[in-house]
């Protein structure tokens, strides 16, 4: 275990993964975008603005998933004080923030032509904004609290408390009347998106996940270099 988390060993694997993702990323990106923008049919009601969904939905999923992951890592980190987990969650946070913002912005651009408004204070949209604020808090604490141990402790607590918001986002459309539509793809049961639209959606999701992995590996590498500069042999 300790040998695996040796710095040069981690470096070796990061390089390998980055190269592998780089080799397939652009091909997949072109395939996914051409499916989303050209080959998929327009919607019967919205027409071509349905294509915003192919970015909006994966972005929202990633925003939620990375916060869940950060919260999970933070719980382990808070209890067992494993420094590596802290570095990982620190590297995930900016990605999650970016995709949460992307989901909000694309949602506004979609809302204007379909709903007739950019913004509505309904439960789904507001709770998504709160998620973005939790991301910001997490990042700012790590940046501006200079004492490493304190930053670690405070940001872990922020992530764990913010995790309470995650089920609220997920079920907001079922618990309350919202302008936002209910989920189309359910964990159990048939989805209400036609299969010709699901394929580009899942492709886009896969490509964006790869993109996240790429950014994450780069961020994680910088964090490790920072540790190395302090002349620590292992984490």
């Amino acid at each position, binding site marked *: 275990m300790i040998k695996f988390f040796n710095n040069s060993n981690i470096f070796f694997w990061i390089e390998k993964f980055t190269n592998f993702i780089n080799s397939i990323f652009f091909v997949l990106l072109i395939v996914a975008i051409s499916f989303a923008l050209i080959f998929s*049919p*327009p*919607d*019967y*009601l*919205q027409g071509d603005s*349905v294509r915003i*969904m192919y970015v909006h939905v994966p972005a929202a999923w990633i925003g939620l998933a990375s916060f869940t992951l950060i919260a999970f890592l933070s*719980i382990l980190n*808070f*209890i*067992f004080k494993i420094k590596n987990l802290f570095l990982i969650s620190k590297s995930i946070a900016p990605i999650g923030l970016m995709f949460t913002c992307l989901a909000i912005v694309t949602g506004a651009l979609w809302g204007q*032509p*379909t*709903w*007739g*408004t950019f913004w*509505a*204070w*309904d*439960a789904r949209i507001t709770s998504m904004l709160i998620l973005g604020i939790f991301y910001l808090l997490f990042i700012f604490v790590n940046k501006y609290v200079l004492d490493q141990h304190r930053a670690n402790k405070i940001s872990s*607590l922020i992530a*764990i*408390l913010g995790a*309470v918001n995650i089920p*609220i986002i997920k079920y907001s459309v079922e618990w*309350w*009347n*919202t*302008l936002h*539509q*209910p*989920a*189309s793809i359910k964990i159990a049961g048939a989805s*209400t*998106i*036609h299969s*010709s*639209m699901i394929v580009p959606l899942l492709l886009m999701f896969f490509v964006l996940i790869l993109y996240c992995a790429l950014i994450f590996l780069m961020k994680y590498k910088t964090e490790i270099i920072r540790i190395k500069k302090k002349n620590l042999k292992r984490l």
Partner: protein
Amino acid sequence: MLTFKVKKRASFLTLILILTVFAVFLILKSLSDNILYFKSPTDIKTSEDLIFNKKIRVGGMVKKNSLKINSDEIKFVITDFKNELNVSYSGTVPNLFTEEKGVVAEGKLQDKKFFVADRILAKHDENYMPPELKGIKKKDAK
């Protein structure tokens, strides 16, 4: 692995999480009227203290064959398949606003049956499909 300190931190965290969930639950429960983005016609029919001088939002489906568009006024009926509410509106509507689709109207209640809207939002449902398929489904229905 499970030293005294680890156990202490774990129980501290569990306690904090339980308290937070409880607090959030209480907050959401007390705010539940404000979290609802719109009221349904049934809510309006059953509520005791109706607000007539303040803006509220009402939502539901636009009833079939109820949409009448004049030169200066749009009239339609919002229904939740139990109760109905007449709405009058003048202005532009979003693209998705048609009969048998979701709608949210923002404006003032005149009385229990009549609502004057000054803003109309269309509510999209969770169904996405290509246009050819919609035709097929309609034929099946007939």
